[in-house]
């Protein structure tokens, strides 16, 4: 009933929204939220492809487990970094953390 296309379009839309959040928002935590949205879109994609294209193989699910693990690790480290940066520069707006320049 629901073709694969629905899920793929949904995942693509979610991904693009997350991309906009990454590129446009100032606050570093909101950037991280955007990244989480993108990762979730990827997860939806993976599970959808598993369900629709090869449900007899467990590989798709294993892959999705890996993505979860990575997402979790990345968030932890990222937030730790943000806190460390905040301590130093008293800001976590991406605009103001601009030392890597001319």
């Amino acid at each position: 009933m629901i073709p694969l296309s629905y899920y793929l379009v949904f995942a693509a839309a979610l991904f693009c929204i997350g991309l906009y959040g990454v590129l446009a928002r100032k606050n570093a935590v909101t950037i991280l939220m955007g990244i989480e949205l993108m990762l979730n879109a990827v997860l939806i994609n993976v599970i959808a492809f598993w369900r629709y294209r090869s449900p007899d193989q467990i590989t798709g699910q294993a892959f999705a487990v890996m993505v979860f693990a990575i997402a979790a690790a990345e968030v932890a480290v990222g937030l730790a970094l943000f806190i460390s940066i905040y301590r130093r520069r008293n800001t976590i707006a991406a605009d103001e953390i601009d030392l890597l320049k001319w």
Partner: protein
Amino acid sequence: MNVANIVWLLPVPPVLAFFVIVLLTNRSKWLSHSIAVGAALLSFIGSMYVFSQAVATEHLGQNPISSVIRWFPTGDSWFEIGVWVDPLTAVTLFFVAWTVLMIFLYSVGYHNFGQPKGDHDVAGMPPHGAMVTDKHEHTHRVPSIEPMYSRFFAFIGLFAFGMYTLVVSDNLLTLFVGWEIMGLCSYLLIGFWYAKPSARAAMIKAFITTRVGDVFMLLGLAYLYTVAGSLSYSVIFSEETLAELAGMGSPILGLSAAALIAILLFIGTIGKSAQFPLHVWLPDAMEGPTPVSAMIHAATMVSAGVYLVIRIFPIASAGWEHGAVLTPPMLFMAIIGTFTGLFAATIAFTQNDIKRVLAYSTISQLGYMIAAIGIGAYVAAAFHLFTHAFFKALLFLGSGSVIHGMEHGVFHTGEHIDPQDMFNMGGLRKKMPITFWTFLIGGLALSGLPLITAGFWSKDEILADAFSTGQWLVFITLALAALLTAFYTMRQIVLTFLGEPRTAAAANAQENRWTMTVPLIILAFFSLAVGWIGIPGEFPVLGGMLPGWFHEFVGGTLAEHPEAPPFHIVPLLTSFLVSLGGLAVGYYVYRSVRAGEPDPLQKPLGSVYTLLKNKYYFDELYDKIFVRPAYWLAETFTYLWVDRKGIDGFLHLIARITFSVGGFLRNFIDKPIINGFGDFVGESVKRFGRGARFIQTGRVQQYMVMALVIAFGTLFYYLFVLVQP
């Protein structure tokens, strides 16, 4: 041992001595002179052996001792050189060997071997003497050893080599080689004391004057070679070649080829044997040490000139018969010879320096010999050459002995006088007896004292030849010259040896050691004895005792044996008269000249005396005509105008042009265009960078946006533009 091989070896010991002394033994004076004298002795022994073999050979003139080797290829054939001993060579070898050995031995004593080194002696100046303290606490000055002792022996060794080469060579080219070697050595030895400006001037004058003669000689050799195809005696003196040369015409003045060649070669002799007009170098050459003067002006170098003339007599006399009109070269020789004979004799009796008198005397006697050849008296010329070598060498060595003794006196008394001026001498007969007697014998031989001295026999023969061939002018002029010769010789003997000493130095003169006196004694013996081998057969009384061996022997050199002059009383009486008369007048005029008095002839002759004393002002004339223009040409014309202004100016112009072109290129092309372009590139990159760096904001989100824009753009381009979907 083949005699010809020994002849090859004759010039070798002296040249070996030269190289050994120069390269190895220069420091050891004893070793150097031993090597040199030893070499001269070896050549002497060899020469005596060759001479003995030569006189024992029948018809030596027709088949001389000879040997040839090939030297360099000339087209199809070879240029051959070799040795040649015919009668003329044999007698020349005899007197060269004796005189060279005597001079070498004499030099040991002359340069004060065994004396201490001088206090202020420098190489290049004559030694000044050393102060010694003897056992009585007296300090006095003694003669010191010559600083350049070894060098002297090296040079005279080379000189001897040159002369031996010239004498034994069988072709005119190696003769010329020996000639030039002697020219070089005369240059080196005249200027032996090179720190003296007068010696330097004299050495250059000698070399350049003889060079003038040598250029013409070389032209003659070249012409001869071109015409005859060879320079070997065996070829050029053969009948066919002589006839060809006599018949061929030359481009100059209508002379035959033979005449032109003879005249050109003779000009070489004019230079080498100091005949007028190239006589100016010989008196100045007295600047050299006395053994050098003896060597150059008696034994070897000037004799080489006369030897050449005698040798080329066949060419000069090609087409001449005895008693006929003289050929142009013979006429030329006769004129120059007689004129020089008288000319030099007139100057000789006004000179005060003991060596100058002998110098002019040599010029005069050489004139005799050349005049003799000029009139065709072949044997007489050779005979006079032979005797003259002995007594002139004796006279020069004797004068050296006198000077040496005078210097001893000068050192002893501390007077500053010229030890060579005869007017400072006097009474040396008592102080230096051996020198006196030997010098007297030599002087009498030069004057031609009748019957006992060798000079008489040779001069008499020349006068007899002149008389018998009817050459009146030559006869009278030569007789006059003989008169003057006797006069100035007696003048010299009286002023030097007789009377009382005119200075303290003369009073303190001393006889010399055996190395100097023994050669004098030996040469004195020869000055007496050697005349007796040439007594003509027809001479009254003495004629039959010793046959005219010399005439027979040397006459065999020529293809046609020359006739001996018939005996006539007139030339004999003339010889007696001029010789004894000249000696008597000389004694009379000069017998009582006291210290400080001028020459007794000065007042009577007045301005003529001054003219003669200044040698007819020839040196000044040559200076004006030749020397000054040469200097002007070198200094002003060539150096200043051509070299500095012309050549250097041209180079400077090129440099200036190059500089301005370079400047133009630098300022108008290099700086604005090339540098500008380079700077432009750099500047624009910098400006672009300065502007473009603001891209790097440090904001991560902007970087990501940029990345995505470019990624999507590239993807878009790839998908929709390059690859048509």
